[in-house]
């Protein structure tokens, strides 16, 4: 049997600087990557991805991805679709917060309590999506093109 590369999920956060919900995306993505689903996920650096990072774009083409956006502009999801392919799943923090009655998220530099709650909710949603994606049967198509070599820029 050939050695197949380990299947991982790419998390692409918008990290929007102007709004506190952008900070929520960043912190939730890092929590998933380093704590709750370490080893099963990688983060893809959105600016590098958009600036033409071939490694990151290739990863997103052949691995499942989840985009995390702070607001309805959905820059991470749109950017991923523009430069790579439709994300496997996407999360919008402002919508998730509204569904859970988390209001007045503030503090783009230092999140307030509502912002911290939004990080928890977003982390939980991402964690569930990662588990769902990894539990689904892998199709043959992506496997053919996966390069087992380290992906430059994807962490």
């Amino acid at each position, binding site marked *: 049997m050939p050695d197949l590369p380990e299947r991982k999920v790419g998390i692409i956060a918008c990290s929007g600087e102007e709004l506190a919900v952008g900070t929520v995306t960043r*912190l939730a993505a890092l929590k998933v990557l380093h704590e709750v689903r370490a080893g099963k996920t990688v983060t893809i*650096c959105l600016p590098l991805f958009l600036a033409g990072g071939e490694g990151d774009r290739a990863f997103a083409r052949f691995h499942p991805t989840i985009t995390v956006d702070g607001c309805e502009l959905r*820059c991470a999801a749109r950017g991923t679709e523009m430069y790579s392919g439709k994300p496997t799943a996407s999360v919008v923090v402002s919508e998730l917060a509204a569904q859970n009655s988390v209001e007045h998220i503030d503090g783009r530099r230092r999140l307030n309590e509502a912002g911290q709650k939004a990080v928890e909710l977003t982390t939980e949603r991402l964690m569930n999506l990662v588990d769902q994606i990894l539990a689904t049967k892998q199709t043959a198509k992506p496997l053919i093109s996966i390069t087992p070599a380290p992906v430059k820029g994807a962490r």
Partner: protein
Amino acid sequence: MSERRIVSVIPCSGIGKAFGTVSREAAYELCENLRPADTTLVALSKLVVGDQDAQSRVRTNPAVTIDGCKLMCASKLVKHSGATVAREVSVLDVFRRHKDLKPEGIAELNEPGKELARAIAAEISGGLDEILAETTGGQHA
């Protein structure tokens, strides 16, 4: 009378290394604490997907980019959007001059990382009036 100009500040906010977080923190320090009246923070992702408000702000104002790694993504993307980069700052270049301020922690910067961000913001702030004077002069040329 000439219109009052401000500077657009665009950090890369790269998520893979602490230097990306330094770029973000430096932008906040500059725009929120040091020069709130003279600067406007623009989200890089908005700019790249063609958000009209973001594009208008960088095209009508001189831009300062802050990048966390040598790939200089923020600078490249701002130029690609048709804006003029008045100053491109590399966190690594400033770090070379402040070797004692080694940043660690992507989600939460350590104290040297925050200090490095403050140093970067102070350097940019020091040159901001010159950028504003140059670009305002350019308008009348």
